[in-house]
C-alpha cells in the first residue's frame, strides 16, 4: 500500500512539475530561448502573491489570477526589451542574459525579502484539507486541484495554439519567422505573447509551490529550474502533453526513490532523467529527434 501511495503522490506532484515546465518548453520551442531565469520567475510570482495578499487581504486563491496577469505583463515587457535585445545578438546571448537575470532576481529577492522562506495562504483550511483511501493513503485536496489545473491549463494552451489567430501565429513564427513576417505578422509581438503565456503558467506554478511548501529566494535555480528541465527532457521538447508526462514520470520517480530511502528522492528523479537522455534523447513523446 505504501508503494501505491508513493505512486499516487508522485503522479499528483507531476502536475505541478508540468506547470513549471510548459513555459520553459514554449519559450524554447517558439523563440529558441533557454530561459535560465525560468525557475526564479516562479519564485518572483510567489513573492508578488505575498505582496498582493498583504496589500489587498484577498484570499490566496483569488490572488492567483491577479499574479498571473501581472506576470504575463512582465513577461511581455521583458521579452520585448531585454530578451529580444539579446536574441538580436544571437541565441547564445540569451543564455547569458537570462543567467544574469536569474542572479539579479535572486539577489534582489534576498535584499528585499531576506533569505527566509515564506508560505502562501498559511492557515487556510483548504490547503491542509485531505481525504483518505483506505487506512494508508491520504491525499491532499490541494494536490488534486493542482493536477487538475495543470491538465486544464495544458488543454487550454493546446486549444489556444490550435485554434486562435495568435496561437496559430505562434506556431507559424516558431516554424519560419521570416515567412510569418511576409504574412503580416510582427514576430516580436508574437514572441511577446508567447513569453506572456510562459510567464503566466509559471506564475500559477510558483503560487502553488508557495502553498504546498514554501518559497525562498534561491529556490528557483536550486530545484524549480532543474525539475522543469528534467520534465521537458523526459517528456520531449516542444510537446505540451510531453511536459505533463515528463512531470509525472519525474514526480513518480522521486516518490518511489523517497519510499526506498528518504535521501534518494532527488537522486531517483535525476536517474530517470539521465536514463531517458541515454535511451531516448528525443524524449518520451517526440517522434523525431528534433533540435
Amino acid at each position, binding site marked *: 500500500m505504501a508503494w501505491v501511495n508513493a505512486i499516487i503522490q508522485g503522479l499528483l506532484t507531476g502536475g505541478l512539475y508540468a506547470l513549471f515546465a510548459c513555459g520553459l518548453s514554449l519559450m524554447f520551442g517558439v523563440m529558441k530561448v533557454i530561459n535560465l531565469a525560468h525557475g526564479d520567475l516562479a519564485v518572483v510570482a510567489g513573492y508578488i502573491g505575498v505582496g498582493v495578499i498583504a496589500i489587498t487581504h484577498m484570499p490566496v486563491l483569488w490572488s492567483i489570477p491577479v499574479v498571473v496577469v501581472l506576470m504575463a505583463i512582465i513577461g511581455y515587457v521583458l521579452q520585448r526589451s531585454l530578451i529580444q535585445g539579446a536574441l538580436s545578438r544571437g541565441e547564445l546571448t540569451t543564455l547569458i542574459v537570462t543567467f544574469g537575470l536569474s542572479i539579479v532576481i535572486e539577489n534582489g529577492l534576498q535584499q528585499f525579502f531576506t533569505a527566509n522562506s515564506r508560505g502562501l495562504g498559511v492557515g487556510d483550511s483548504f490547503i491542509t484539507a485531505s481525504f483518505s483511501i483506505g487506512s494508508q493513503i491520504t491525499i491532499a485536496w490541494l494536490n488534486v486541484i493542482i493536477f487538475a489545473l495543470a491538465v486544464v491549463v495544458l488543454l487550454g494552451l493546446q486549444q489556444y495554439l490550435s485554434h486562435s489567430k495568435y496561437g496559430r501565429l505562434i506556431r507559424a513564427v516558431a516554424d519560419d519567422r521570416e515567412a510569418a513576417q511576409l504574412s503580416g505578422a510582427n*514576430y516580436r509581438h508574437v514572441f511577446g505573447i508567447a513569453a506572456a503565456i510562459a510567464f503566466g503558467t509559471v506564475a500559477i506554478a510558483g503560487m502553488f509551490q508557495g502553498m504546498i511548501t514554501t518559497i525562498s529566494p534561491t529556490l528557483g535555480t536550486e530545484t524549480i529550474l532543474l525539475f522543469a528541465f528534467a520534465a521537458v527532457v523526459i517528456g520531449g521538447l516542444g510537446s505540451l502533453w510531453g511536459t505533463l508526462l515528463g512531470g509525472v514520470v519525474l514526480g513518480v520517480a522521486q516518490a518511489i526513490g523517497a519510499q526506498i530511502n528518504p535521501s534518494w528522492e532527488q537522486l531517483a528523479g535525476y536517474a530517470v532523467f539521465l536514463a531517458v537522455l541515454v535511451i531516448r534523447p528525443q524524449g518520451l513523446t517526440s517522434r523525431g529527434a528534433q533540435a
Partner: protein
Amino acid sequence: MTSNLPGGQPPGMGSSRPPSPPAPVPPGRQESGAPLLEVRDLVVHHGQLRALSGISLAVYPGEVYALIGANGAGKSTLLRTISGLHHPTSGSVTYDGKNVTGVRPDKRAASGIVMVPEGRRLFPSLTLEENLKVGMSFARKGPWNIARIYELFPWMKERRGQKTAQMSGGEQQSVAIGRALVANPRVLLLDELSLGLAPVIVQRIYATLPQVLESGITVLLVEQDVSQALRVATHLQCLLEGHTTLEGTPAEVTREQVEAAYFGATDGSNHGLG
C-alpha cells in the same frame, strides 16, 4: 549585421557600367496613372558584397512586371528588399505614392505588398488550411478568401488537413501562392515560382495567373526561365550582376537582346552563348 569594412566594393566586379538612370516610361504605361510600386537607385549589400548597384523600376497597376536574369544577378535580393527583408544601403522604395523604404516587412505585407518567397517557405508543422489562415491573419479586404483558393486549386479542399511537408513541390508552391493571395495583396511578388518544378507543373501554376490578374492584383515576378517570363510579362527588366541590362515590353525586345542582356555579352559579340 552588415559590417562596413574598408574597401566596400571589391574591384573588378563588373562595375564599369554607370548606375542606370530612372527607367524611362514607355508610351502607353502611364495611361494607368502613377506607378503603384517604384524603386529608385536601389543599392543593396550582402556584407561586403554589392548585390544591387542602383536598380530602378516602376510597376504600374495591372502590369505583370518580370525581372529576369541568371543566378546571382540580384533578382531575389531586389524582391526581398521591396518586401522589406533586406535594408538597402541607398535608394528608395515607393508604394502607392508613399516612401516605404524604412517600413518593417510585416507592415508592408499588411498594406498590400505580399511576397511568395523563394523556396515556398511554408510552415511545415501547420496544415494546409492553417497555412492559408496565417496568410489571412492581417489580410486587407478583397475578393480572395480560403474558399476562393479552393476554387483556384480544387485539389486543396480534400487535403486541407494535411501537413504541407508531405506535399509535392508543385503542391507546396500552390499553397504558397494561396497563402499570399488570401492576404488580398495589391502587388504580388513572385520569387522563382518555377524553381525545382517540372515544366508541366510550372505551366499549370502559371495558368492560374490570369485569374489573379482579373482580381486586380499587380504582379512583379522574378524568373530564371526566360521563355516563361516572356510569355506572361507585360513589361520586363533584365538584371546582370546587380545592374539593369535591358528594359522594355516583350514586344520591344528581340531574342538576341535578351540573350545578350542575360549573359552579359556586349553588343555584336558572343551571341552564340545561348
